[in-house]
């Protein structure tokens, strides 16, 4: 059953997730940006991807602790090298899954 409170919760969450997605798009796409901002934004993807990936590979637990020996990291090394070499998105995804599956089987 869906209560009014639950609908309010979803609406509230929806608004606060939507606004950060919408405001920059709306504000920035309608004008020419200063040079420094363009250069800064140009560096954001590399930065954000790295910031998303690395902690999930080398930390674990709650609260997080450094963990330098785990399947996620072990698999990431050959997968990263494969991506560097082939630049194939599909191939990288499939290889990552296969190695992760194997690592789970044999390394536990």
């Amino acid at each position, binding site marked *: 059953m869906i209560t009014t409170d639950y609908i309010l919760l979803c609406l509230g*969450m929806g608004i606060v997730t939507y606004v950060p997605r*919408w405001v920059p798009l709306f504000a920035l796409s309608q004008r020419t940006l200063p040079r420094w901002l363009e*250069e800064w934004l140009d*560096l954001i993807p590399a930065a954000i991807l790295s910031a998303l990936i690395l*902690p999930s590979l080398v930390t674990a637990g709650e609260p997080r602790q450094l963990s330098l020996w785990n399947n996620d990291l072990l698999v990431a090394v050959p997968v990263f090298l494969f991506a560097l070499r082939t630049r194939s998105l599909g191939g990288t995804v499939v290889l990552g*899954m296969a190695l992760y599956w194997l690592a789970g089987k044999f390394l536990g």
Partner: protein
Amino acid sequence: MSDHAAPTDKASIFRDGVRAAWPICLGYVPIGLAFGVLAQKAGLSPLAIGLMSVLVFAGSSQFIAVAMLGTGAGIAAIVVTAFTVNLRHLLMSSAISVYLRGIHKRWLTLFAYGITDESFALNLVRFREGNWDWKRALTVNHVTNAFWVASTVIGGLGGALIPAHAFGIDYALMGMFLCLLVYQLRGRLYVLTGLIAGAAAVVLSLLIPGNSYIVAASVIAATAGLYIRRRWPSLAASSTPAGERCREPVERNKR
């Protein structure tokens, strides 16, 4: 940027979008199922799960919301948490806005709904490579959204019956992110920025709970990168100049 434009008929736009979106869809299935199972255990019906997925479409905050619901947290606390968890989309949306110049506001409003870590990273790469446009990007956003909503609802209906961790599917998104990161390393400056971001993110993630480390580390790294570009231009010289990538959209606007 390539000179020949991609076909503009609806069928090829949809096909290209779906083709590009499959790694994300694949990656969403195990996460969506897992979310559905958890949400169902927390007492949410499949309909309630679907409602949240449609209205929110943000994996991490949905997981947190369900966990908080389980502990009896109030609406305000959950909403505030969701807000802080999703602040990183400010950065993503800013970075992708460069490619969405001159698009009608109505479409921007629809586009914004589908900006996630995954669609952002994928679309950005495609835009840069050329032969990509906002309609294809929008298709990616909405196809992946549909997969997300469906997987969460299916998880709520009977996800516990589906074997978890099958075929390494849990690694699909990580594999995709690793390859998308490779695409971003277009010169020494980008490698350096990535290294700074990664190191900062690891340190900050160990120091502060939650996921604000993503935004903090990205801002630190991009600012450091910009400083390096200004201070030692020769170091950044091997990289593609930033202005290069906006040339095409700007020209299109003039016509």
